[in-house]
């Protein structure tokens, strides 16, 4: 099993996870997806959240903020969506995307797990 598949499995093992993806934000296409449902199409999520990441990076550049994005949290009424750009040399231009069911998820723990997965991943 590849490292990418392992990372996706670990992401889905986080409490409350409903969908996970590793996305290339240069192309907007997912390198791998796991989970998801009829109401959560991960291909659409990958393309759409690529715009979110790009918009944030552009805004930071325009503001003159020379920092890295650690993660982006989007809180919905029934879900959490966490976006975490991969910082390692081998994962440049990729981000992790994890959708969680709010009623079952522990946000602090989920962010902690995602940080660990991001540090381990090799693509």
């Amino acid at each position, binding site marked *: 099993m590849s490292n990418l598949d392992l990372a996706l499995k670990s992401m889905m093992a986080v409490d409350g996870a409903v969908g996970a993806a590793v996305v290339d934000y240069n192309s907007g296409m997912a390198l791998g997806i796991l989970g998801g449902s009829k109401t959560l199409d991960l291909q659409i999520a990958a*393309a759409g959240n690529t715009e979110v990441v790009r918009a944030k990076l552009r805004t930071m550049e325009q503001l003159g903020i020379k920092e890295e994005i650690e993660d982006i949290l989007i809180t919905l009424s029934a879900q959490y969506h966490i976006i975490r750009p991969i910082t390692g040399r081998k994962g440049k231009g990729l981000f992790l995307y994890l959708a969680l069911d709010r009623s079952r998820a522990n946000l602090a723990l989920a962010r902690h797990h995602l940080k660990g997965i991001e540090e381990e991943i090799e693509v």
Partner: protein
Amino acid sequence: MTKRRLGGLRERLTKVAMSDPAHGLNRVPDPVVLAVLRTLRGRLPQLTGSLVASSDGLLIAHDLPASIEPEGMAALAASELSLSQRMVSIANDGAFREVVVQSTNGYAVIYAAGSTASLTVLADPGANVGRLHLESRPVAHHIADHLVDAASGTQRPALP
């Protein structure tokens, strides 16, 4: 006159039908397809142009920038379509769906629109290809349906 003769020469050499405005071969663009292409451009800011051509290289409608010659592009799209269809028939024997040509200055994606036409979409190098596919595939599908209907003379509701 010279221009027409040149067109005839190009036609013989390239085996691609050249439109001759004087003979009315240069048909009016399909208004439904044109409207669909304009809507697509509105939805994708990184899109620089689009074109629909039949598999025999005739232009159906285009929304290209002035720098690109639509007739030539239509002919090229048709040869790309037939090349890809042959590739598919040899490689894995299915129906051709799309081909992405990426260059340092952008993308050209050719989608099958049914078995007799293609949709070509041009985009910036910074384009979100995932989104480009998500938006363009239904459009290619819709155009395919429309062309079938147009051939049989029925009407279909517009794309939402």
